[in-house]
């Protein structure tokens, strides 16, 4: 894992990593990858992957409105809003 690999990952994850820390970050991410590479030695042929510890099925609720409109409460804590919309820098010219 070299600094340019980490830059690519950081872009995928939408994370800014400063130039002066990228070498250190690459090194520590590589160490973690090395740790998890121990998995490759495990024999897992035919083993069903386990996503939920109880192998429970996803529980779905019926498609009914249960909550009132809480837009104002949620937007009160937003960085920037206007007329009930979230503001971000212009995306399309």
């Amino acid at each position, binding site marked *: 894992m070299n600094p340019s690999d*980490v830059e690519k*990952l950081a872009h995928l994850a*939408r994370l800014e990593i400063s130039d002066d820390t990228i070498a250190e970050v690459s090194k520590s*991410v590589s160490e973690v990858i090395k740790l998890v590479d121990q998995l490759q030695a495990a024999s897992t042929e035919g*083993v069903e992957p386990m996503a939920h*510890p109880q192998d429970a099925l996803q529980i779905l609720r019926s498609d009914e409105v249960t909550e009132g409109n809480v837009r104002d409460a949620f937007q009160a804590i937003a960085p920037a809003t206007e007329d009930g919309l979230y503001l971000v820098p212009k995306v399309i010219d």
Partner: protein
Amino acid sequence: MHKLSIAELSRNLKNKVFSSVEATRHFLERSKKLNPEFNAYITLTEEQALAEAAEADKRLAAGDDNVLCGVPIAHKDIFCTNGVRTSCGSRMLDNFIPPYDATVVANYRAAGAVMLGKTNMDEFAMGSSNETSWYGKVRNPWAPNCVPGGSSGGSAAVVAAMMAPGATATDTGGSIRQPAALCGITGLKPTYGRVSRWGMIAFASSLDQGGVMARSAEDAAILLNAMASYDSKDSTCINEPVPDYTATLHNKLEGLRIGLPEEYFGEGLHPEIQAAVEDAIKILEKRGASIKKISLPHSHLAVPAYYVIAPAECSANLSRFDGVRYGHRCEDPKDLMDLFKRSRGEGFGEEVKRRILVGTYALSAGYYDAYYRKAQQVRRLIKQDFDEAFNDVDVILGPTAPTPAFEFGAKGNDPVAMYLEDIYTIATNLAGLPGMSIPCGLVDNKPVGLQLIGQAWDEARLLNVANEFQHHSDFHTWTPGGLA
């Protein structure tokens, strides 16, 4: 008053020996005095606590028989609290004031418990030393130059320093049990699905579980009674009846079969911790328990599997923090990409970024099968080890952590060394099983934790074993020197 257990506080409140306002004021004053030294609370909610206490006093006067009515407790700052800043130990959420309560918080509110404040933690619960908190490190009440463990280090320190009689916490890979061990208190991580995760800020959704910290198994049982509930707002919460966890605390241990996994007593375990755990086993044997050596052969793969699954799930969960809807936003973003990248780059600390990157890598095209799928297969092997073991034993016992509390910075530059701190606790999360840590002695004047692991939904038995142990030993009553 701060030395009283939750059970004793409750009796005194019911008998009008003191009021909830008096008890709450006592813990607030003590916390204000001690917190500058230990940094265990991020926020003390004094005004609100006193208002809640006054409300509880009215309920008590009206004959409310809820055992927690009027009892002050602390919440880990990972649980959303309506109108009270919930930071998750991160700069990202330094300005986040949730407009709702987590189900766990609502459950305690309904029981009449009073919230004293929000406790410090590793950022987004990622860490085993509390050193990754944006709000600074928590000091261990037993050894102020040492870590309290993590990620629920603030909750553990608050309980150990008697700034609160009990606290909520969460455990993704050991974050309740390891700090409980390092701070000499009792901590319980329930079965995955026992406690609602709604409003509990997500780290790794298939592993995260809320739980409790207190100074005894009896108090932990009282706290779990109020915390556990089925919640349709959490799609992974399981609809199992919640027993009264205090009802079986005093069951006799005769005939109890305890398994000792050979993998938990091997290389890397501090010899004096091993000796303390072996002495503790003798106490349980005297109560009629039988001991059997067992094997959990895939134990060595637990940490590697965890460091695929937890980062993968965290990279997905933490994508919601984008600088748009709430939380930190960078100054003067030049375009949307800049807003995302700088808000996240500034808002997250080093360890959180590292795990997001590892998770992104493990989930990226071409690597998914080699990492995430493989880790989930290994996860099943680990679960099967436990299933097999529980054919022959009722509970599994071992050390909680391989070492006592270590000094600040001791593992600072070595993430893998820090990850190995959770070597005995992580497998329990992967298998979704309940686990407990209770104090069983001191090494270098620092507490040692004994871990108990149970079958799914067998919290009552863990609490029973822990309570019987505590009735025939006094480790749990030991308090840090210098803290009257």
